[in-house]
């Protein structure tokens, strides 16, 4: 009964919180910042959670793992469906450059921070036990928040172009983050005694299983969409069935549902002959509702007893974002000089943590429930909060100078030629 009531409460809050009647409120910039990162809902979850009101307990959330896995599968499928081959091939060079630089800078830095930070915090020296938290923090560190409206100072062309780069590169980085998390989680398995160990062989089998699952899901989806009618009810039935199947199978394989579902989405969207427009639209319509559900659950699962070590780790991750994330957009601006004229606050948008981090961290808690996993979720949330606050504070302190203080006519001509070529290529 408690489980049912918890589901009802979370679902009601999610639907109410994303209703059209709140659209006007969401257009306020402070509210947009609070919503895009899920902070309002995380706070609500913490309020309802075991440490304050006790309306929803962490144990109940863990017992509802199949439903949470379903929500994570939904997110994964949504992200995977955006990975169309033709779209990825036609991405502007600035978007690809921003993503690659993000990967190159974030993975080593956050890998070191995660390995050293969690090692010192937990006192653990076994690499197998440190690999998963390290992988979690790397995955959470990749990419950035794709919402830019709250940071756009102006409506000029430069702001518009940079917003598009931020959104598209953020989307691409989300795919990379989930892939890294999925591969890392697959390589770390529990043995018969329940102890974690690195197992490349079993990990490879798990990954092959995920790929096979994705292909099967793609084939089933194709058949189901052909049989189903065109109504929303038919699409809903097909969709719910696919997500449930891929999420459940992923859990049984020992792989993260978000990863397996993303692979399934990637296969599905690149299969010929499937009309996916309505399917995609259906997924996107529910994007905010699912995000609110995951944020509330994250709030419930928080463990504030991270101590000074955990707080330092979170601060390190936040400062790490400030150190490397602007570099990604700077690298993109070398290919598109118009990006350099974007507003100062927007240029720091890449510092803000991606919402995918929350989904990955919640999945980690469900897959490996322990005091450390709850605390790592809290670290991710605190790091995310810092990553929201730092750009706001920094933009107030920094003078409003463009990305590059000097530009030459040659650089501008090069950028214009590059932009024209990209336009022709599309």
């Amino acid at each position: 009964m408690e489980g049912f009531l918890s589901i009802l409460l979370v679902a009601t809050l999610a639907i109410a919180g994303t209703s059209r009647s709140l659209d006007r409120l969401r257009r306020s910039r402070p509210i947009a910042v609070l919503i895009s990162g899920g902070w309002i809902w995380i706070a609500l979850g913490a309020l309802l959670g075991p440490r304050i009101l006790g309306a929803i307990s962490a144990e109940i959330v863990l017992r509802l793992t199949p439903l949470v896995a379903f929500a994570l599968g939904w997110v994964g499928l949504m992200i995977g469906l955006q990975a169309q081959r033709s779209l990825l091939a036609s991405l502007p060079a600035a978007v690809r450059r921003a993503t690659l630089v993000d990967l190159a800078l974030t993975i080593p830095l956050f890998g070191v921070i995660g390995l050293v930070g969690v090692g010192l915090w937990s006192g653990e020296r076994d690499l197998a036990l440190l690999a998963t938290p390290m992988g979690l923090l790397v995955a959470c560190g990749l990419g950035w928040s794709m919402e830019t409206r709250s940071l756009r100072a102006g409506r000029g062309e430069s702001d518009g172009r940079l917003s598009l780069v931020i959104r598209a590169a953020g989307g691409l980085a989300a795919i990379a983050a989930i892939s890294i998390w999925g591969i890392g989680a697959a390589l770390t398995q529990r043995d018969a005694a329940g102890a974690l160990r690195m197992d490349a062989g079993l990990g490879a089998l798990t990954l092959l299983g995920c790929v096979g699952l994705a292909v099967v899901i793609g084939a089933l989806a194709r058949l189901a969409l052909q049989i189903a009618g065109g109504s929303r009810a038919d699409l809903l039935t097909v969709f719910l069935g696919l997500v449930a199947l891929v999420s459940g199978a992923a859990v049984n394989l020992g792989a993260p549902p978000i990863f397996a579902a993303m692979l399934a989405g990637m296969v599905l969207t690149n299969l010929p002959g499937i009309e996916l427009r309505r399917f995609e639209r259906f997924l996107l319509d529910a994007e905010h509702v699912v995000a609110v559900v995951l944020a509330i659950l994250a709030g419930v699962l928080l463990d504030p007893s991270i101590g000074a070590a955990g707080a330092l780790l979170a601060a390190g991750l936040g400062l790490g974002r400030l150190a490397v994330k602007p570099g990604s957009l700077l690298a993109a601006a070398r290919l598109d000089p118009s990006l350099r004229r974007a507003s100062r606050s927007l240029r720091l948008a890449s510092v803000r943590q991606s919402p995918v981090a929350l989904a990955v961290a919640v999945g980690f808690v469900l897959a490996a429930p322990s005091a450390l996993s709850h605390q790592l979720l809290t670290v991710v949330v605190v790091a995310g909060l810092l990553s929201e606050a730092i750009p706001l504070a920094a933009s107030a302190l920094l003078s409003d100078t463009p990305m590059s203080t000097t530009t030459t006519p040659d650089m501008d001509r090069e950028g214009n030629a590059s932009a024209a070529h990209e336009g022709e290529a599309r």
Partner: protein
Amino acid sequence: MAEERPEQKAGSPEAEPRAAALLFIIVSDPGALDRLITLLLDMGVTGATVIESKGMGAIIREEMPIFSGLAALLPARTGSRVVVSATSQQRAADVLGALEREFKERDRPIAFTTAIGQSLGVQI
């Protein structure tokens, strides 16, 4: 030369069945457009303009992407269509009736008419 129409009440086809009306049909599901066009042809509407559009709800949602960053580069695949046709009041009323019969309520497009006062270049 612009053709003048007598004053008329919109939505009163019985009074002025041959009077002109501008028929708007908003299809939020691009997949239903094919059915709609077939229906229009069946009802004798042989000319219409189809405009790709986007609902305000979609714009509001796209301004705040959570997980759908790449979807920003796929606008045409999730947009709506607005079908506009200048036709007679009677025919417009027939089309609205057919939409009511052929589409279930939850799948039904939004449709309405306005009166046309003057027109140029179109035979109604």
